[in-house]
């Protein structure tokens, strides 16, 4: 089959690779019908996340049609149209039973690569470094999905592919980030980043009853999507002296009740702190640029919630004293998709939230490298390209 592979830093290539096969009895093989790049892919493409190998099939946000099932799969059959969360859960371990699916104990075959750094292991994920499992990704014609009964969610017939696809990751992650905020009447939620995850977090916060939602970015089309699609107010951080001061003024001097970081380790910003972070990261003296996260910590209301969805390495300057003295609650995780996907598909079917506006460009698999390039550089108003293998 054809697949989009990581060849080296900033070098993706479409290659011919062997077809996946059923390995374990609860596996299925899907024909991938739609898959999309995630902002977190850019971190290993840019070389900031280790343990990629030449030839790895990438991609972790996808949906497809079941073509083959293992002998112990019960709830999924050939021909079913399903959407699959990016982190793989087993459904049996204590973490899965507690609905903390990305912490699953039983789906990372390379746990020993992760443990020295994390002190423990995460679930496996498709196409996202060997430390995170080494599973072949979804930017391919076919993909193997382990523990299919736990990981395949049937897409209602009435939904278009673009309405269901983002439940795989961007929407589930954004929704979880808003859920972490325990939103109450009158709350203001600020969201750093108006990409797929940030927009879904804003949309979800509004669905959960936030009085005001504020999106922060610098790209006009993304800020426009935040206003027009998610109903947010927006801040263009390149147009204000201080994001923190602007947020304080917008909230009567209190600061947002909850702040969601949907940016992560390659944040952009302005001013001296950003220049310092950027220089240090380019020299590989540290892995992260934490501009967005530090702003969120400073802006957040005392006693408020900091919800971190951005992906980080070992950020070396974290203002713990500010978190501590302001009594912030930090909530963070890789997405617990299996917990949220059923309700997301229900929202989509009811027409409460249609995420298909994220899909700004449709491309073939062969056009994958160019699509990633456009996505990375935010060209042509791109929020998310979708690939149709």
């Amino acid at each position, binding site marked *: 089959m054809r697949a989009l592979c990581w060849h080296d830093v900033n070098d993706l290539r479409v290659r011919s690779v062997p077809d996946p096969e059923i390995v374990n009895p609860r596996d299925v093989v899907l024909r991938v019908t739609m898959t999309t790049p995630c902002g977190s892919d850019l971190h290993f493409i840019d070389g900031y*996340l280790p343990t990629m190998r030449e030839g790895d099939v990438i991609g972790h946000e996808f949906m497809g049609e079941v073509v083959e099932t293992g002998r*112990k799969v019960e709830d999924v059959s050939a021909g079913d149209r399903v959407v699959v969360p990016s982190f793989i859960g087993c459904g049996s371990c204590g973490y899965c039973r507690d609905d903390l699916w990305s912490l699953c104990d039983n789906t990372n075959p390379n746990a020993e690569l992760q443990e020295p750094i994390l002190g423990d292991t995460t679930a496996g994920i498709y196409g996202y470094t060997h430390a995170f499992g080494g599973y*072949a990704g979804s930017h391919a014609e076919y993909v193997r999905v382990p523990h299919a009964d736990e990981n395949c969610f049937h897409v209602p017939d009435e939904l278009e592919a673009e309405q269901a696809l983002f439940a795989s990751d961007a929407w589930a992650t954004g929704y979880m980030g808003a859920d972490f905020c325990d939103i109450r009447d009158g709350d203001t939620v600020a969201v750093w980043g108006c990409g797929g995850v940030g927009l879904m977090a804003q949309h979800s916060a509004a669905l959960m009853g936030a009085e005001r939602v504020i999106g922060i970015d610098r790209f006009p089309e993304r800020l426009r999507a935040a206003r027009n699609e998610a109903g947010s107010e927006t801040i263009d951080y390149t147009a204000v002296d201080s994001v923190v001061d602007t947020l304080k003024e917008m909230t009567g001097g209190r600061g947002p009740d909850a702040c969601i970081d949907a940016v992560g380790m390659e944040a952009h910003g302005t001013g001296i702190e950003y220049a310092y972070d950027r220089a240090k990261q380019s020299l590989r003296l540290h892995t992260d640029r934490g501009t967005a996260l530090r702003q969120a910590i400073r802006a957040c209301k005392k006693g408020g919630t900091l919800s971190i969805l951005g992906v980080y390495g070992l950020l070396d300057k974290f203002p713990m004293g500010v978190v501590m003295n302001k009594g912030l609650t930090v909530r963070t995780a890789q997405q617990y998709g299996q917990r949220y996907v059923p309700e997301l598909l229900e929202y989509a079917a009811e027409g409460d939230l249609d995420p298909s506006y994220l899909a700004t460009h449709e491309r073939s698999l062969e056009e994958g490298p160019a699509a990633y390039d456009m996505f990375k550089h935010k060209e042509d108003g791109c929020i998310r390209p979708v690939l149709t293998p």
Partner: protein
Amino acid sequence: MSSALSTAIPETLRSGAIVQSYSAADGGDSRGKRLATMAAGGLLLAAGLRRRSLSGTVLAGGGGWLVARGVSGSDRPVRTLASAIRDRDGVGAGVPEGMPTVERSITVGAPADELSEYWHDPEQLTRIMGPFAEITGAGEDRLHWELETPRGPNLTWETEITADEPGESLRWESLEGTTIPHEGEVRFRSAAGDRGTVVTLRLQFDPPAGSLGAAAFQRLGIVPETVAKKALRRFKSLVETGEIPSLEHNPSARGSGDLL
């Protein structure tokens, strides 16, 4: 990033071939050891620095430490878990020097009385031990272990169950005269609350210094700690889900399968 390095390093990590002393008080060629330590350290340091990444930093740090060690001529063995365990009162007491012993625990979400049988059954034990060895029955309470080697004949040895308290513990040891004298014990105790069972695996390998066994171990990059940790993880997955996560037939442009 050099693509040769980017593939070489994960291989090193994967095989668990992390420099490890067997803490044998052999007082052998200390200059040779120092040079070997420095060379290994230098390799890791260079690889780590060239990787310019998170794992690279870890590698470089470890490499730098080994170089410093080689330069300072420290003859103190790299501290192994075996020696750490020996140092602790009560646990592993009486384990002689030269025997790498590891003890590792994992919590499995099942009651203890369902767990013993996995360690009796050669088929299940082979799945648990994964790439380490293939295990077959060799008569009552006896198992035959076979370890494939890249070159030369396979390593084989036999073990016998020496103590068996269902739901509590199981012990085995290799028969006299085997290539890889080996002892194992698995213990079960209830975890707090409804968290299942704490399973503790103790493995002790006894490759006599300079013997075929020791050489084979080092050549194969077998680190008992890695063997124990992987075995426990695989055991837990097998018990909790009925299967073990696998990269068999995993597609990539390198081919099919990323067997570790």
